[in-house]
């Protein structure tokens, strides 16, 4: 394999900016995702301020200019833009870049024993398309009329006619930005699929793949199969806006519900695209710190495949009160609730991985356990939404907001951070500070719950989503204390990230040098130096066994690396 390699580039630009090295590209995705997470978080802060103290000046609003804020107060159009862009950015420009872009690119070639992705230049192109997409999204705030303001779901006719939302070019740029994002991840998906199928090291059979690789592979396939209809829908929406067609405009014979079907056909599987890499992180971190094989490896995978297939048959549960044919509702409700069956298997298998282990609790493990415990809440509360009659009441209320934040926040941020703390030594060659890490974990976990748990109560109380001023409603006045509490907790959640940023800076400059395998883990990436050299491995890796051979009876040590010969393992 080594003869296909390229010499390590020497110029700064080829090495760090326009690099074709999957490790550099993975880090680029990571930084981009983190910057966008910060921006998305600040948008949440501005929204929450307006909700808790409607019509008051937002501290820090001096950084924003008119017409977004007037005298420091957020205007309704800007509020709607924040609602829209917070969702868009967190899903497409934080979750996907970090979980698929960063972890997928950085880890998959290392974990399968490859020297790079199958198409390194395509890989570079994917990242730069995504970078352009992110820029387009952020620039859209500064065009006349501001950024898209029709919700991240962009339901027409509101999104189809500039007059109805007051947003003209912002919405067009939103469509353009998403189209670019989809292209980036379609190219990335093809690349990942090809890499996993064709570039595995000798001995790395499919059933020896680390769970993370399986999850990335499944996520890429789900994404590629589901995104088509939404791309078509986005083109129709753009035509409606720019050319004046009426695909979604009833006055011209169009149908607004068509968009909802096209959007959610992708929109729901997208949740699994994000979720699966998060489960992949858990499946690597939990065994390593329990010193145990993952419980029922194949059963987890079969369950994930079943859930992946089911995820294509449930999209209309977002549309129970949309006016679609009511006879379609119950089949979608049944299919939705059925997803709990494969996920029960996955969750209990992850829990059973702890059973009889020898459990250590470094920050990475704390984050993994945090992901697992919090995701369970997200999963269970999904049943309420999946049950069509209950959904009549809680649809489009804060109950839904709480529910999907309990699924996505653990997956993306807690799971992402578990991965970050776990693989940081590999990526940067230094250990993160554990004390700062644990402070960061507990502050984040507590403030996360303080933000989102009360939202269930708000939703039950009838607090609808995306309203600018809850004080309009008598119904919501008794709940205003909760709303204020949530806002204060949001500020705490944002401030809780300061120890994290300090940790990164301190550890990158002064952190302890990482050994090749600080966690004594089995997968291939730990068999090479931290950080790995150009082209990843010094020799050609040969895989001897599955990825989770921890605490094998009769072995001298409690781990058996995938690459190591059993003979050398026992004689050492």
């Amino acid at each position, binding site marked *: 394999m080594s003869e296909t390699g390229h010499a390590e580039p020497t110029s700064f630009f080829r090495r760090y900016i326009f690099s074709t090295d999957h490790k550099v590209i993975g880090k680029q995705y990571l930084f981009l995702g983190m910057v966008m997470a910060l921006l998305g978080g600040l948008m949440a802060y501005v929204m929450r301020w307006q909700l808790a103290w409607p019509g008051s000046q937002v501290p820090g609003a001096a950084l924003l200019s008119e017409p977004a804020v007037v005298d420091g107060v957020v205007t309704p159009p800007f509020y709607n833009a924040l609602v829209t862009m917070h969702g868009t950015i967190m899903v497409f420009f934080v979750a996907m870049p970090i979980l698929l872009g960063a972890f997928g690119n950085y880890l998959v070639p290392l974990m399968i024993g490859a020297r790079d992705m199958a198409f390194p230049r395509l890989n570079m192109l994917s990242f730069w398309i995504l970078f352009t997409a992110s820029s387009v999204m952020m620039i859209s705030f500064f065009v006349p009329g501001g950024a898209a303001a029709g919700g991240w779901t962009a339901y027409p006719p509101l999104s189809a006619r500039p007059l109805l939302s007051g947003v003209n070019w912002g919405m067009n740029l939103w469509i353009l930005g998403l189209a670019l994002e989809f292209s980036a991840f379609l190219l990335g998906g093809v690349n990942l699929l090809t890499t996993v199928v064709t570039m595995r090291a000798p001995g790395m059979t499919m059933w020896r793949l680390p769970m993370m690789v399986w999850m990335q592979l499944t996520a890429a396939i789900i994404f590629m199969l589901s995104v088509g209809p939404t791309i078509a829908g986005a083109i129709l929406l753009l035509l409606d806006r720019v050319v004046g067609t009426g695909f979604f405009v009833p006055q011209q014979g169009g149908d607004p519900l068509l968009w909802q079907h096209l959007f959610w056909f992708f929109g729901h599987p997208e949740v699994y695209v994000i979720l699966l890499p998060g489960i992949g992180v858990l499946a690597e971190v939990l065994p390593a710190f329990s010193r145990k094989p993952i*419980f029922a490896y194949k059963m987890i995978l079969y369950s994930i495949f079943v859930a992946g297939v089911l995820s294509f048959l449930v999209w209309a549960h977002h549309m129970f009160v949309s006016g679609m044919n009511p006879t379609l509702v119950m089949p979608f409700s049944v299919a939705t609730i059925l997803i709990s069956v494969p996920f029960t298997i996955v969750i209990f298998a992850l829990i059973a991985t702890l059973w009889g282990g020898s459990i250590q609790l470094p920050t990475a493990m704390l984050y993994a356990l945090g992901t697992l415990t919090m995701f*369970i809440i997200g999963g269970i509360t999904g049943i309420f939404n999946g049950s069509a009659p209950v959904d009549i009441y809680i649809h489009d209320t804060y109950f839904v907001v709480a529910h999907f934040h309990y699924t996505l926040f653990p997956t993306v941020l807690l799971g992402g951070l578990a991965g970050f703390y776990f693989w940081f030594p590999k990526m940067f060659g230094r250990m993160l500070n554990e004390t700062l890490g644990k402070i960061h974990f507990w502050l984040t976990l507590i403030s996360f719950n303080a933000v989102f748990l009360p939202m269930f109560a708000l939703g039950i109380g009838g607090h609808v989503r995306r309203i600018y001023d809850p004080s309009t409603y008598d119904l919501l006045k008794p709940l205003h204390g909760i709303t204020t509490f949530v806002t204060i907790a949001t500020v705490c959640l944002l401030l809780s990230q300061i120890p994290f940023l300090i940790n990164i800076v301190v550890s990158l400059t002064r952190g302890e040098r990482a050994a090749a395998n600080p966690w004594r883990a089995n997968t291939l990436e730990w068999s090479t130096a931290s950080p790995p050299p150009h082209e990843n491995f010094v020799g050609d890796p040969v895989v001897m066994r599955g990825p989770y051979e921890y605490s094998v009876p009769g072995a001298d040590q409690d781990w058996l690396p995938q690459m190591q010969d059993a003979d050398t393992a026992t004689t050492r």
Partner: protein
Amino acid sequence: MAKWFPHNVSTFGGDIDSLFWLIFWVGLAWFVLAEGLILYFVIRYRRGKSQKAAYITGVPWRQSAWILVPAAVVLVLDLAVDAMGAHAFEAVKGESPQPDVRLRLTGEQFGWNITYPGPDGVFDTPDDLVMLYEMHVPVNKTVAIALGSKDVIHSFFVPALRLKQDALPGREIPVWFKATEPGDYEILCAELCGFGHTKMRGMLTVHTDESYAQWVRENWEQ
């Protein structure tokens, strides 16, 4: 927790609430089981001198039963929730009972237009009455609403009725309810409909028979 629910005043709201509580208690049981196991395992199997990990792969059926049995139980519970749900959903969104009162409700940016057919009981005649934001109905009578929208998607939401239905332009969607207690109940728009979304506050007034008759007299007979 129950105190956060607005007081239910519709005939079908009780079914929705009891389904909510069924899912809540079943969900809570699973929550306690799953989180309890995690907590127990982390404490019990914390690494120590004597704590060596066991080699448990979960592959033999005897072991994988630990995850398959819970999944089977979940499947049964799912079907129970579905069976109850089908009934409750049909009650709300299925065929309306014979209506006593007919209204037309049309959302627009940013308000609700409520059209009453007037004394002749027929829409689109000169005696129609159109009110902005105010919906007046009698108590314990079946109210049938033809829901529509002039521009974008709105969503008719009355928390006290546990009723929500999107209003689509170009379509008339039938909605019905029967309110069981007189009083004033807020109407919200649940679907983002533009920069005035928050202002779409309507008011449903459920009258006693006498006050409804009086309201009709004062407003319809002009």
